[in-house]
């Protein structure tokens, strides 16, 4: 789609805002509607849009495959380690109360970290799924579609 000028310009303008909105949904999730799942998908949407307009190879330069493989488990690890932190600090698994001296602040902190982990994993997984399909060599002829 290299020659679709309008598309390229519009998406170049849009992508930063999509990312910003993703971050908003991510970090505002504990006060209003939002959270890691939604944010992750929005975040991934930005990268997918980029890949669609500028090509898969270009997108791979932004986030290499290796980074994705690293990011997927990273989010999960953040989640699980927060859970274990609860145990280590004397509470139960995923107990946010003990994360800080004040239980309310602990809850706040806990849910932020957890959602961050979720967001990272979801975004990385969505991009991986897209890449897994888009990156496949053409096996289907034009006529077949």
């Amino acid at each position, binding site marked *: 789609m290299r020659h679709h000028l309008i598309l390229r310009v519009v998406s170049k303008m849009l992508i930063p805002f999509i990312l910003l909105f993703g971050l908003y949904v991510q970090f505002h999730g504990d006060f209003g509607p939002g959270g890691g799942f939604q944010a992750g998908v929005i975040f991934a949407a930005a990268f997918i849009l980029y890949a669609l307009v500028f090509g898969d190879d270009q997108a791979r330069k932004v986030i290499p495959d*290796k980074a994705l*493989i*690293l990011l*997927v*488990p*990273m989010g*999960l*690890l953040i989640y*699980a*380690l927060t*859970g*274990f932190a*609860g*145990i*280590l600090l004397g*509470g*139960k*698994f*995923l*107990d*946010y*109360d003990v994360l800080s001296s004040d239980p309310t602040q602990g809850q706040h902190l806990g849910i932020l970290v957890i959602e961050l982990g979720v967001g990272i994993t979801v975004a990385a997984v969505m991009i991986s799924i897209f890449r897994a399909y888009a990156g496949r060599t053409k096996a289907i002829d034009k006529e077949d579609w």
Partner: protein
Amino acid sequence: MNLIVPHLPVLQVAIPLIAAPICVLFTFGGHRKLAWLFTLSISWICLLIAGALLSRVVLETDISYAIGSWPPPFGIEYRVDPINAFVLLIISGVSAIALPFARLSVEKEIESDRHVLFYTCYLLCLTGLLGVTITGDAFNIFVFLEISSLSTYVLIATGVRQDRRALTAAYNYLILGTIGATFFVIGIGLLYMVTGTLNIADLAERLKPLSDNRVVHAGFAFIIIGTCLKLALFPMHAWLPNAYTYAPSLVTVFLAATSTKVSVYVLLRFLFTVFGPTYDFVNLTFEFVLLPLAIVAMFAGSVTAIFQTNVKRLFAYSSVAQLGYMMLGVSLCNIPGLMATILHIFNHALMKGALFMALGCVVYRLGAISLGSMKGLGRRMPWTMGALTLAGLSLIGVPGTVGFISKWHLILGTLESGYWPIAILIVGSSLLAVIYIWNIVEVAYLEKETSREQTLKEVPMTMLAPLWVLVILNFYFGIDTDLTTRVARNVAATFLGGG
């Protein structure tokens, strides 16, 4: 110790869960071989935890663990009682025994660049199965069920290197499994609609005054059908034979020994803990749905097995029949019958684990497992075929093996309910097992070998040792039945008394 012991219930699930992403990291820096070792050690840790949990619930009392310190009816509760501690032990035990066998088998059957992801999926599957078993929250069961199922579909599809039919098998399982899980979640939703709770213990309490509510009936039906699809009760077994046949050996061993058993456990949980045989509609289900289907399953599975030429598929159909035995025990709804089911969950894991592992050894050497290719194998691979024969005897239910113990209780259960024609049917279907086992024995020992098999050697020790551990357990628990019958009796009494 204080850091570990009170948290054992959650560690049982959290350790394999966190191990899965860590395992992915082995893709970096040429540590691929370590993935297997890592998975193995995680499995053994899980086994230790399960053992500790079981000994605690058997000797002391049930354990309840509130995730995130949210008290039970509101937060997610992990609840360990003898039945699920027992199932936990089965799952982690099979995994711990199967993994030493896995190294060579996986190297042979799966491309080397996929090993790390394969073991990651395996760990996720383990997490899911353990989670389904340990959780005390109905919706959480669904989540873990899907974790295990999704990873199972992937694991089955990795068999594509051997045979492309693994793909369609995984696809069909995906469709049917998802329908089953969705039915299950509809049922949960309907129950939630009337009770407003998802905690199993709480659900049981709140359902008591609602036995005439039609939404409850619908929810019950959805849950039963959903789990029966997952546990492959005839006629909802269509996904099972191909899935077992074309999956890699390790996956078949693990799935055959654990995944359907976990679904049986879920069914037991809902039938007895949540609803209980005091409800009329539950009793009607036993008598008019589960009992006839179980009997048909026993025969349809065994008869189909007799005509199979692919030995893996043969045992897959035999699994359908064996699930019939388990469901028969459930539907009898008396102490020996339920004991038979619970014993058979354990015993069948031992015998099918051993059988599929022996077939895994055959695949390792031959690459194929049709009856025709096994001619004269008894001489070339005496230890493998010996193990196969002995585990087959256990499947038939020869006295001194675990199969006999469960069959004994099952027959006792039918006679106690006065269904003595069914007792004869049970006996008849075990005679069918004699036929298909003996088909294999005859081919392996009495047929002349073809020239191709002349150069065959026995599989390496690392594959034989786990196989024989399982075979010996088949006999050990056939003679020393203290542990198994004690747990089974305990559970059966709670289910029937507490319901």
